[in-house]
């Protein structure tokens, strides 16, 4: 790696000030599992690397009046082991355990995963299905966006160059919503998703009052399969035919690519199978709760 200046601010204000002062000469360092790999493959790295692990506002998992707040620096392992997440959003754990391997999860952060924003990111679909919001901060102040508006394209987010991702919020209305997640990869560990999919349901009086279906790795960003959602909404629990129809519709809303890992045709198969399964599992969760 080319050498750089290393700074480690201990407050959010110091971190944001440094970002404003140095602009594109500075890169924030969270878990390092993406940044350090990038730095090792370029001779044009940043002049300054800013370690944000000491910024307290980026840590912690807590219940707030608005919902469950998860700090950007929370690692995937911490998510796996957090009682609050097990209670309110266990599908996040199902997603976290599929990321990389033990070593990557011990270092990698949820914020880093969202900011790197590769189309196949594993933490994306569940959070999109849970209507998650992200908070960003610059010297000028804080702002909050739905995650779907945060993701702009492959490796492109709404984060301004002088902003840091602070936390992720799962709104109160979505806490405890029965959610299921599936990832398909060529291996069970250290695998990039060919397709990942999450779905949740709200059941009222034997009917599906609300549903969210989120697809990852099959489009430039994580997407909601809104047409598929429309097919399922209002239908009776137990109507598996409608789930199959929704699964086929979800396929039409995705734009999977052919690459060396899998063909677009195979990915379409996986979307159909995956969507059906997560809907089925979410419903099973809802009706046994």
């Amino acid at each position: 790696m080319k050498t750089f200046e290393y700074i480690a601010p201990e407050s959010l204000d110091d971190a944001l000030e440094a970002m404003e002062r140095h602009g594109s000469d500075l890169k924030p360092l969270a878990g390092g599992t993406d940044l350090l790999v990038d730095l090792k493959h370029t001779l044009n790295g940043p002049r300054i690397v800013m370690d944000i692990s000491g910024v307290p506002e980026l840590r912690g998992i807590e219940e707030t009046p608005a919902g469950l707040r998860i700090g950007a620096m929370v690692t995937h392992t911490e998510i796996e082991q957090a009682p609050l997440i097990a209670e309110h959003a266990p599908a996040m754990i199902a997603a976290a355990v599929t990321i990389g391997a033990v070593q990557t999860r011990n270092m990698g952060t949820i914020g880093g995963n969202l900011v790197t924003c590769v189309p196949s990111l594993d933490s994306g679909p569940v959070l999109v299905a849970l209507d998650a919001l992200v908070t960003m901060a610059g010297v000028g102040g804080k702002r909050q966006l739905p995650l779907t508006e945060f993701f702009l394209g492959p490796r492109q987010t709404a984060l301004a160059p002088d902003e840091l991702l602070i936390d992720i919020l799962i709104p109160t209305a979505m806490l405890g919503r029965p959610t299921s997640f599936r990832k398909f990869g060529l291996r069970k560990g250290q695998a990039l998703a060919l397709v990942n999919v999450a779905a949740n349901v709200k059941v009222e009086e034997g009917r599906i009052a609300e549903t969210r279906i989120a697809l990852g790795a099959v489009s430039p960003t994580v997407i909601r399969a809104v047409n598929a959602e429309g097919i399922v909404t209002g239908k009776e629990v137990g109507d598996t035919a409608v789930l199959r129809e929704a699964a086929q519709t979800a396929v039409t809303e995705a734009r999977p690519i052919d690459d060396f890992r899998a063909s677009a045709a195979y990915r379409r198969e996986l979307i159909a199978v995956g969507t059906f399964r997560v809907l089925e599992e979410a419903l099973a969760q809802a009706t046994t709760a």
Partner: protein
Amino acid sequence: MRGDGVHEIELTVNGVVRRAQVSPETTLLAALRDSWGLTGSKLGCDVGDCGACTVLVDGLSINSCLLLAVQANGRDVVTIEGLGGFEYLHPLQAAFERLSSYQCGFCAPGMIISAKALLDENPAPTELQIREALSGNLCRCTGYTKVIDAITEVCRDHAGAVGVEQSV
């Protein structure tokens, strides 16, 4: 920070306080190998895929090729050299020796640290849990079978002797 791009770091490595002067881009792996001659942790890929560089930092297994040495300042690091020596073997090392679990041996240090991290957290893992815990450590020689057998043996042998709190 010394002002000329060199940082002085101080951390505990295998129970001993170690100091070094490192430039910021030095990884923990490079510091272990070059500053302190602890060459047990290996460079296999340098991008956190193969696990040959796995060490424990504050009890968590991490890829030391992806952690800057300056980030390890003030922390507690355990490497393969800290598990045992030529005369005294950690139970895991003894089991791997008994079963000849390794061939070229290059993956062994990282794999053994991951095995220890697993047993520190879960003294009685299932085979699936062992496989998942080792999924960040690649081996090209063995096919992993005897590594898993050895870990299973250690758990079996220590099930009665070791309480849940005591790390293996």
